């Protein structure tokens, strides 16, 4: 059997095996197109979901009350200043809250009378 005969016999065999099995091009093409469209839709949904999560995260970050910033006090101002804030301020429920509505009476002699201690 020469090469030409082998080629022809192979082509016959191939044709017999593939006969009636090849689907129409249009069907395969449109199926591929639909799969692509479905894949794109899934991707958009995923991107939308991630974007929504990001928006929620940013919004919740913006809506949260801001903690007061630590402020730098210049040593010179500090030395000449007349006001003082206790470092324990951070433990108060609100920044710089006045915990003493009135000056407490510790002992009788500390009661205020006309601006002077008794």
């Amino acid at each position, binding site marked *: *059997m020469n*090469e030409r005969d*082998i*080629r022809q*016999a*192979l*082509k*016959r*065999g*191939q044709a*017999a*095996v*593939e006969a009636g*099995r*090849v*689907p129409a*091009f249009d069907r*395969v*093409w449109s*199926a*591929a*197109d639909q*799969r*692509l469209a479905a894949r794109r839709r899934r991707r958009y949904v995923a991107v939308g979901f991630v974007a929504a999560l990001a928006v929620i995260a940013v919004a919740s970050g913006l809506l949260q009350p801001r903690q007061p910033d630590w402020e730098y006090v210049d040593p010179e101002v500090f030395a000449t200043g007349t006001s003082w804030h206790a470092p324990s301020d951070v433990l108060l429920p609100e920044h710089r809250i006045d915990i003493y509505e009135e000056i407490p009476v510790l002992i009788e002699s500390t009661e205020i009378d006309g601006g002077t201690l008794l």
Partner: protein
Amino acid sequence: MRDSDVLDNNPHVSRSALEAIHGQVFGWALSRCNYEQVVAEDLVQQAYMELLTGKAQFDGRSSLKTFVFAVVQNLARSRFRRRARHLQLAQQAMPEEMVATPIEPDSNDAVWRAVQQLPPRQRDVVELVFCRDLSIEEAAKVMGVSTGTGRVHYDRAKRALRKRLRDE
């Protein structure tokens, strides 16, 4: 090539050119998956998707047929590499009599049967050159080997075929 036919993401490919080689591409896909029609159709759909998205970019350096055949070949290779791993695990857990045997093409032709018995690379090169009318260089491109290697497979396949046909 009609202008309206050209794929958006693949300027050197047209729908009509693909339609012209569809039968050959499908035949090649069939032989890639043991002649399982559903799997072959899935492979061809995937190949068309790759072309539509431009993931497989045809630059016109080879023939479109060679290019699409190579796309199908690569898709089949990666698909069956994944599947082989799953199959191996499934077969380990399966009773021996339940393990499926590959589907044989139902052709009685002696030459066809002799080709099917060749080692995979030799079978591929014979199919591409003899049945699909590619040159050895093109067949090597599709198979992802050098032209020299393709030629070696081709010569060995021809020798083996002659011997088998003489023996029968």
